[in-house]
């Protein structure tokens, strides 16, 4: 919301300077977004008289002027057709920056004739569109003086951000009222005396709850020319384009009083003007040149022939006023705010009127608003007003809040004396008890109010409906900066962990991953449908995505990480180790997940290890196990199984290499992680050269740790040394290492505490695996017979799987 300082002073009688006004606006909740002083850019320009004008010797279209800008004649070359002796215009001296032309003037020869500055057009000064010639000022304009102060262009433009609850401050008067309440002077009375009317009012009616009240008045015999200089200047200053007096009056009053109005050219109307519900599919050509197709339930203003107005949002092109208009109908209506909001959203049509109506204009201001508008029309355009026709009635419902002034202290944290609170509320237009006006306040009257105050809310404050709102009113005027900080009492007792087990788990896994050399990325939660497809597709998609690339809620963290991997490799990154902890979005909810991608060089080439090496599926397995261990999963009990096919309940699509990937499961059904190499066709889709290893770890599938307290299970390190024995087996092809190790380990559960494959030999028809077992004696050392017995059990267990001891 923009307005100028002089405009504000029309409503506010104040001694305060601009700086104080700006600070106060922000302090009371009307945040100043900016202040511009157009006079600043125009300060160097002066009023100057052209003394003589002669043809340029070298150019037909140029003239050589002698200009007096207050210090005697200066030679200026000028191309404007209207430049002539005696013209009084605006002059920029060498060194002056010309905002509209974006140049800094200097003394220069133009076609061989020296020019000492420039006579300017309106566009060059950015004060208008005119560029047909230089500005022409009245004869008596003071030569040598500042043009900006002469033309009254030193009026600072203030831009204030109005929060959606403050419709009343979408007019300059509301802002002035807040400032007056804040102590910056007094609110001037508003003259709203109706012009003496003659003749019957226009035929209008309302047939819809979307427009509870439609007041209208005719003015006949108007002349619709340019609006006066003061009005055009103000509208231009705030970025509104002056159009014609009648249009400018409605725009001016909307800014001035926050009261939207509409003026119809009566010559275009056929029959009575009616506010009614639109019929489905009805069309209207709006003032912005676009045709809107309306739905049933929207409110329109129409006559017998056509729709003339999308009620409260935008007028129609057809019935708008023109320079030829002589008879007008001025409409001052109240539209249902919710209806306006819905219509505006549905049509995606914003306007100054909609902004105000949907926030709820003052329902008690229809008569005054119309009277003020009519007076302006009569004053500026002439004509004779008719009586006012009042169709329907605006919903003026007195709202009274029962207020305990102590709430200011107990909720707002600021003890404001009751009398002061009453005066603040009164100055904002509230009434307190029987005191209905700020000037009516007296201590005697105030002291008669007992107990909770009945506070009546002014009609223009639709947002205020409870005691907490009154606390806000008092505090923002008194100064929220005066609220003293009060320490929050400490929670009694010993500090307890404030993070949930899930959060602690996430933190552990995150820091474990970073400690293992992985870089944490944060990627979008939405991906393209194409990228989601190999991971089973997205269960959720956006109805209004920013782009197709960010449309589907990710079913996996890998697409985002693969895109990031692609970008990194394209930038010449040698090795990529990225991980992310976030949610994947499934049909039945959001699941915390860790995704991890290993691409490029596992290690760079080096003088010790030779050539660079890439990542393989076992790197992915190592990361998966390490992170599961960090998460507290029972890593030793996990089973490695293939990634389930779609038939087995796995996801559709080809994300993983069928032979070089697996799942880590706790029991046959609970999948804690997928790991391995990614499918080449997936990599191709992401424009990646493989091989690339990846892990997905399902944090939600991890079993909750049982609360076992802080004490550990008792333990004393065994006194005796462990014994190691090696076995080399020839195994049938297809026997998984894991199966062999489990069998060996299980051969003697008392003595064998560990078993692992430490060597592997594979030939076409033969596969051999060497397994080391660790035996832990408990009370006495093993005898040879003991060891042989264990060895026999190991060999027997392996034999069951078809493995034979190598000769």
């Amino acid at each position, binding site marked *: 919301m923009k307005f100028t300082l002089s405009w504000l002073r029309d409503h506010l009688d104040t001694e305060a300077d601009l700086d104080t006004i700006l600070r106060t606006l922000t302090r009371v909740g009307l945040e100043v977004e900016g202040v511009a002083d157009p006079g600043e850019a125009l300060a160097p320009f002066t009023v100057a008289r052209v003394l003589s004008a002669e043809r340029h010797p070298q150019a037909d279209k140029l003239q050589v002027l002698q200009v007096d800008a207050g210090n005697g004649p200066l030679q200026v070359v000028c191309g404007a057709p209207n430049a002539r002796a005696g013209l009084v215009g605006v002059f920029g001296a060498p060194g002056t920056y010309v905002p509209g032309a974006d140049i800094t003037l200097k003394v220069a020869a133009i076609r061989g004739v020296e020019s000492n500055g420039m006579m300017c057009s309106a566009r060059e000064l950015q004060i208008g569109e005119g560029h047909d010639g230089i500005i022409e000022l009245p004869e008596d304009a003071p030569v040598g003086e500042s043009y900006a102060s002469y033309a009254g262009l030193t009026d600072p433009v203030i831009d204030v951000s109005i929060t959606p609850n403050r419709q009343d401050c979408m007019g300059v008067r509301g802002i002035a009222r807040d400032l007056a309440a804040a102590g910056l002077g007094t609110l001037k009375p508003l003259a709203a005396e109706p012009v003496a009317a003659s003749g019957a009012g226009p035929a209008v009616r309302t047939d819809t709850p979307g427009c509870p009240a439609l007041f209208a008045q005719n003015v006949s015999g108007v002349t619709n020319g340019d609006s006066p200089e003061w009005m055009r200047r103000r509208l231009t200053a705030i970025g509104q384009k002056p159009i014609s007096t009648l249009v400018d009056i409605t725009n001016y009053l909307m800014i001035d009083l926050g009261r939207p109005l509409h003026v119809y050219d009566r010559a275009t109307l056929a029959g009575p003007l009616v506010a009614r519900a639109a019929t489905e599919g009805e069309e209207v050509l709006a003032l912005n040149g676009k045709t809107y197709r309306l739905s049933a339930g929207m409110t329109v203003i129409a006559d017998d022939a056509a729709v003339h107005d999308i009620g409260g949002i935008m007028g129609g092109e057809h019935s708008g006023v023109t320079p030829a208009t002589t008879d007008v109908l001025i409409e001052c209506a109240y539209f249902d705010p919710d209806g306006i909001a819905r219509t505006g959203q549905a049509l995606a049509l914003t306007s100054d009127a909609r902004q105000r109506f949907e926030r709820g204009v003052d329902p008690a201001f229809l008569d005054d608003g119309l009277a003020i508008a009519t007076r302006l029309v009569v004053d500026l355009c002439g004509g004779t007003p008719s009586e006012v026709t009042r169709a329907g009635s605006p919903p003026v419902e007195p709202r009274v809040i029962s207020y305990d002034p102590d709430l200011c202290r107990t909720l707002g944290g600021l003890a404001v004396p009751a009398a002061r609170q009453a005066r603040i509320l009164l100055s904002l237009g509230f009434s307190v008890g029987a005191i209905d006006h700020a000037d009516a306040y007296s201590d005697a009257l105030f002291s008669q109010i007992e107990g909770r105050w009945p506070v009546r809310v002014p009609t223009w404050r639709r947002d205020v409906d409870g005691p907490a709102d009154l606390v806000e009113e008092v505090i923002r005027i008194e100064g929220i900066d005066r609220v003293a900080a009060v*320490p929050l009492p400490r929670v009694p007792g010993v500090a307890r962990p404030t993070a949930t087990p899930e959060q602690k788990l996430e933190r552990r896994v995150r820091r474990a991953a970073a400690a293992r050399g992985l870089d944490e990325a*944060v990627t979008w939660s939405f991906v393209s449908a194409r990228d989601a497809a190999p991971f089973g597709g997205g269960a959720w998609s956006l109805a209004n995505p920013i782009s197709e690339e960010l449309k589907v809620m990710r079913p996996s963290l890998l697409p985002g990480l693969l895109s990031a*991997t692609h970008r990194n490799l394209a930038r010449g990154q040698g090795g990529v180790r990225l991980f992310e902890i976030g949610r994947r979005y499934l049909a039945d909810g959001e699941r915390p997940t860790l995704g991890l991608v290993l691409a490029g060089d596992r290690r760079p080439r080096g003088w010790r290890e030779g050539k660079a090496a890439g990542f393989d599926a076992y790197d992915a397995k190592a990361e998966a196990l390490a992170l599961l261990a960090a998460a507290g999963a029972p890593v030793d009990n996990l089973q490695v199984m293939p990634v389930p096919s779609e038939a087995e309940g796995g996801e559709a699509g080809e994300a993983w290499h069928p032979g070089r990937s697996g799942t880590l499961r706790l029991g046959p059904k609970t999948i804690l992680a997928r790991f391995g190499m990614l499918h080449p066709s997936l990599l191709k889709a992401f424009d990646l050269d493989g091989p690339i290893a990846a892990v997905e770890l399902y944090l939600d599938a991890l079993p909750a740790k049982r609360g076992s307290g802080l004490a550990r299970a008792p333990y004393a390190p065994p006194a005796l040394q462990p014994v190691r024995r090696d076995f080399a087996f020839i195994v049938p092809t297809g026997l998984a290492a894991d199966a062999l190790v489990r069998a060996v380990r299980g051969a003697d559960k008392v003595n064998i505490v560990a078993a692992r494959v430490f060597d592997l030999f594979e030939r076409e028809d033969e596969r051999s695996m060497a397994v080391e077992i660790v035996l832990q004696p408990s009370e006495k050392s093993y005898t040879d017979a003991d060891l042989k017995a264990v060895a026999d059990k190991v060999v027997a267990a392996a034999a069951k799987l078809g493995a034979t001891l190598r000769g």
Partner: protein
Amino acid sequence: MTDDLDQMREQMLAAVAASPGLDALDVVRVDALGKQGRITQLLKTLGAMSPDQRQVEGPRIQGLREAVAAAIAARKDALEAAALNARLATETLDMTLPVDAAPAGTIHPVSQVMDELSEIFADLGFAVATGPEMETDWHNFSALNIPDTHPARAMHDTFYLQQGVDAKAAGTADERTTVSLLRTHTSPVQIRTMLANKPPIRIIAPGRTYRSDSDATHTPMFHQVEGLVIDRGITLGHLKWTLETFLKAFFERDDIVLRLRPSYFPFTEPSAEVDVGYTWTKGKRVIGGDPDKMRGDGPNGGWMEVLGSGMVHPKVIAACGLDPAEWQGFAFGCGIDRLAMLKYGIDDLRAFFDGDIRWLKHYGFSALDVPTLSGGIGAAA
């Protein structure tokens, strides 16, 4: 006899000293102290001596044996040391050759700052709460006193889910249970927390939030932290203290200055936006500093908006089934990405979500930089 022994001592010590290596030294040892060695032989003569003679000669011969043995031991040490030194002299490596460093991973600034917030607020007794990112209309808007037609909904550039749109079209949508949008703020966690827990409540809720907005300073996904306190007798003064304490702890400065500005959020009343003062120091924008420099957004400093806050609206408290006459409190919401940018001097929001390893290495944090109260919340560059 005396002369003989002296002569023998001199000769043997000379032989020890002259031994060029361990082998030669051993020859000298055998010659002197071996079974057939000359000193061994001399010791054997003691038995045949008279007691008087033995008393004289015994110590002399023993003295000789000890002196020679000591000389041999010393020479042996010297020769061994020389041999070791000679070997070591040949064992040289170019110690300037590079070694492979273990890859150093990083924690994303957003995660780091979330951990910092959890730590700071844990000290104030706030637990960490979470909620879904795909929300219902009711939790994201209606329960927060933002009705359908409220202009505030337009401020929120909401991403709607197709499933919700379809359900509405089919008439099967339930405002309270139909997941229909991506949460536009972390405030629905307030609602979920109040519904699930009895006051007193103190929580923060960090997490991802979404708005249909994309330009240099806005991303369609961003991070917020919500704070909520519901108790008896909580006032705006407690809110002010909490925010001051939080921001002081976060920026690790005592000279943090806050400016509360009355504002409007449908779910708080009274509401305030909170600006934090900054000053320019050596061409850098620093949060905090001399309040005089912050006045009027001049060349020395100014204000920047960091969060929105207020006293929880009685309608919100009532919507969660609590009695607003008994329970009141405050709530605030703050952009985590922005906090991270301000604290750690990061200037490009979009880079947060690109996954550029160079950026992550530069702005990320070590796994060991765990924020703690004793060790400091922030991690130095």
